């Protein structure tokens, strides 16, 4: 199983991505570079969520707490206490991991059904928004503004633009590789067993608590780190974006539409839907208010009706039909 | 009355029933035997219209019903008593019976049918207001059969009616089956209990891995060595 991971790691595709990444960004106008960066942020976030939502089947809407912690707490620590943002990133990640462990434990301890878990995590997400709104240290409803990014690496600054692109590319690839690694490791196997039949998993002696907590902690810490990097790029720590249920609802949308539980599915969904949303808004935002969102909604519905198992499986099917031999790898 | 011609049914492109043909005349009890996974339940559900066949035809009283929906088949009198009873646990016995006769043909005769069913199963009369989920297994089986009768069945298809019942109840249920037969009802009986089926059915089919392995009058089937083999799933 490990071999699969190393094979992926050694795949020539990465070389192509690397070359493209080195060549393309300097050529891209700033607005399009921004869309690329944004897409990478959501590729990373959707892939991080997939570890829990896709592989373990726990549809967590509480991830906005982890993203929000990574973003707001590291910013507040820097602005209010002068803590270096690298350290802030670590502190936030540890706290997010702890929150994740707690949520996984609650899920296990109270034997929550799927829907109860969704709704309880949604309530956590809403509570997170209310708490940040009312807590001055984290900036309250006004949010916090980071100092300008001057490219000082030691201060967690990457110079915006191309620097941010590389950071997000690394995070996105790391997030995907962690997916591949888990899928090919015993953890991935256990998670799928738990997802498909928790009782059966328990009957054969799988330590459910351990794997649920492991998945949630990995996913939470990863989301937190991405949150920190994202806020550094945005520079403005906006609670209504970073700690709101809306961000997580979007991530779940990307992951689901792309293909849940697959290593590349969520990334695929984000890569398609983020640019689509941005371009639609750019082209149509100045016309009839709401039109671009309306069309986006129609596209989402159409895509789901057309490929109810996710886009990636659909594309694989087309691909395998065209080249039947390539169909064996999943 | 019922003719099944070269029926092939399956899920996700994989056939489970492979070329099954059978017939049932009016007023007959036909037994359908076979090991687990032989395709008995798939067959009965195909007859009820729950699965669309991949090929083949089903005719009922001379009418081609292959393309009919489950609802239409219930309306022409093809009624199934499913495996495991599947009564509606949160509803009262009375409500379960009323639901049995919910199809357009039976709806208006419900009071009459209800009397008939309660006369057949006096036990249900006592339990009319009770939730079906609280009944014993045997009582649930009575209810399931009663519910099917409410639909004014012409062809009654029973899927494993003896499953999980005490010998006493099994006897009782088969007594009822005989009585219904005597009243002229056509019955397709699916059973694991070989001897019981052979005793009550006039003709039998033995399914083996989705195909008819043996067919014929009950005594003939009984003595055919292939029956035992198919039945043990060897």
């Amino acid at each position, binding site marked *: 199983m490990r071999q699969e991971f190393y094979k992926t790691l050694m795949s020539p595709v990465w070389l192509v991505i690397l070359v493209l990444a080195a060549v393309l960004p300097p050529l891209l106008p700033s*607005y399009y570079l921004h869309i690329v960066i944004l897409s990478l942020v959501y590729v990373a976030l959707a892939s991080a969520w997939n570890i829990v939502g896709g592989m373990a089947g726990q549809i967590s809407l509480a991830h906005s707490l982890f993203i929000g912690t990574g973003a707001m707490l590291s910013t507040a620590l820097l602005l209010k206490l002068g803590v270096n943002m690298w350290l802030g990133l670590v502190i936030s990640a540890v706290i997010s991991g702890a929150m994740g462990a707690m949520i996984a434990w609650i899920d296990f301890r109270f034997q929550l059904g799927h829907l109860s878990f969704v709704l309880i995590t949604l309530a956590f997400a809403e509570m997170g928004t209310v708490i940040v709104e*009312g807590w001055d240290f984290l900036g309250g409803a006004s949010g916090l503004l980071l100092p300008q990014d001057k490219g000082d690496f030691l201060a967690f600054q990457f110079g915006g633009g191309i620097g941010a692109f590389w950071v997000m590319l690394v995070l996105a690839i790391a997030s995907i590789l962690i997916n591949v690694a888990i899928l090919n490791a015993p953890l991935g196997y256990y998670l799928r067993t738990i997802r498909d039949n928790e009782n059966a998993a328990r009957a054969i002696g799988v330590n459910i608590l351990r794997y649920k907590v492991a998945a949630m902690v990995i996913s939470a810490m990863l989301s937190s780190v991405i949150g920190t990097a994202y806020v550094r790029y*945005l520079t403005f720590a*906006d609670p209504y974006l970073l700690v709101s249920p809306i961000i997580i609802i979007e991530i779940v949308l990307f992951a689901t539409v792309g293909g849940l539980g697959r290593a590349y599915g969520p990334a695929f969904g984000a890569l398609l839907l983020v640019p689509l949303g941005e371009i639609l*808004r750019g082209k149509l935002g100045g016309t009839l*208010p709401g039109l671009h969102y309306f069309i986006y909604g129609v596209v989402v519905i159409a895509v789901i009706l057309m490929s109810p198992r996710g886009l990636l499986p659909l594309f694989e099917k087309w691909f395998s039909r065209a080249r039947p031999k390539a169909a064996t790898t999943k | 009355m019922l003719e099944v011609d070269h029926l092939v049914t399956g899920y996700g492109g994989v056939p489970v029933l492979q070329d099954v043909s059978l017939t049932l005349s009016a007023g007959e009890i036909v037994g359908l035997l076979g090991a687990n996974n032989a395709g008995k339940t798939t067959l009965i559900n195909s007859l009820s219209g729950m699965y669309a066949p991949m090929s083949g035809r089903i005719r009922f009283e001379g009418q081609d019903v292959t393309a009919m929906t489950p609802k239409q088949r219930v309306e022409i009198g093809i009624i199934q008593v499913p495996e495991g009873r599947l009564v509606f646990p949160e509803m009262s016995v009375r409500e379960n019976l009323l639901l049995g006769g919910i199809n357009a043909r039976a709806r208006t005769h419900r009071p009459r049918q209800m009397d008939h069913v309660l006369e057949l199963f006096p036990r249900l009369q006592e339990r009319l207001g009770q939730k079906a989920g609280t009944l014993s297994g045997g009582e649930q089986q009575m209810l399931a059969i009663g519910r099917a009768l409410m639909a004014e069945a012409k062809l009654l298809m029973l899927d494993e009616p003896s499953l999980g019942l005490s010998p006493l109840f099994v006897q009782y249920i088969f007594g009822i089956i005989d009585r219904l037969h005597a009243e002229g009802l056509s019955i397709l009986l699916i059973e694991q209990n070989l001897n019981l089926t052979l005793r009550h059915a006039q003709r039998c089919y033995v399914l083996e891995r989705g195909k008819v392995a043996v067919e014929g009058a009950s005594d003939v089937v009984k003595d055919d060595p292939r029956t035992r083999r198919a039945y043990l799933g060897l």
Partner: protein
Amino acid sequence: MTITRREFAVGASGVLLGSVAAPFVRRAGAADSTIRIGVVNSMSGGLAAYAQEGQPAFEYIIKKINAEGGIKSKGGAKIELIQADDTSQPARTATEARRLITEEKVQLLTGTILSAQMLALTPVLDELKMPTLSVWAGGARSNYMFTLGYPYDRGYAQSMHDFVVFLRDSEKFNIKTAVMGYSNYEAGQQVNKFLHEKLKASGIEIIGEAPLDIKAQDQTSAMVRIRSLKPDVVVGLVTPRDGILLHQARYNLNYHGSIFCGGTGGYSDLSLWKDLGPEIGKAVLTKNLFGMTGFSAGAKVDSMQKIITELRDVAKLDRIGQGAIQYAQAGRVLQQVLETSASLERDALLDAFKKVNIPFGDPNLYVAKPKGLQFAEDRLLVDGSAMFIQWTPDQQQQVVFPKEFAQTAPRPRA
């Protein structure tokens, strides 16, 4: 579905290819005779009300400027507006601004740009050095951002404080205690912080807070809380929507034990009567209530009265509130910037912003600023003050503060 998969695939890849190729297709340069102004507004989403009210007024003024010969110092150049929608999400304000600046090549940027959007926009403006006029932000963190909004501190908070003290000291209202009743969002919280300190410093005791949940559909509970605290005055920044709910709640509880002072839209928008209905409006707006506003038909300012009439009768706008007037004012400010700027280069425009001066009495001054309209060092208005009005039963406003504009004395407590 009538679309087949393949058709959809072709269409979808078309959209994708188009978006990938778009940056490499260079747009022909804009004609010299037009000046492109990017307008990034919240046309959809939770804040849509602000921009949707202001946008028509803004377009009207720009059209008028163009019709009257455009920007004369630039050879009669016409202004072209390039609209964008940030869907009420600050991160998208930044995205859209970036697009307008780098793709649409706009020469100036403006829009609702509430405070959160202003913050999100700051790094983009600093990076791309684009002179920008916000219609509503209460602060300006980028060197390139100017704003017409009331500064939180010396604008909103100071005006409300001054008025409360005026009521107490000059008008002999009995005001000893206050409850802070404000919309619980970024501007509401900011103003509240400053106002809290100022009132305390002036000897008014703050006996409680009643933040209004901006998502709530009913504020009765908040009003019950206020009633139980029974302060002499309830004061704070309230959005138009929360204002409607707050006044309604006051009507429901028939509560007249406190004086309600606040602004802006939630206390003084002309549309309040329409939103509350005449009966409720009469019962609560005309009793123990004073609203902060930047404009009022009743104020003794000719230019202000003229623009209100014009927007109503000529532009045929059905909703003329704070938003519409602020936007109309923004149109005039941009006009002056473009007229006085030495060129259309960014540095020149920036200088022109710093020199903006619409003195009191100027026909293009639509908001009530006794000292006129200029930007201070911090790029906020020098004169951040506002008026206070009271409502009359015939749905008119009377200015009661400050003295410069006052038509009448505040109605005594009922």
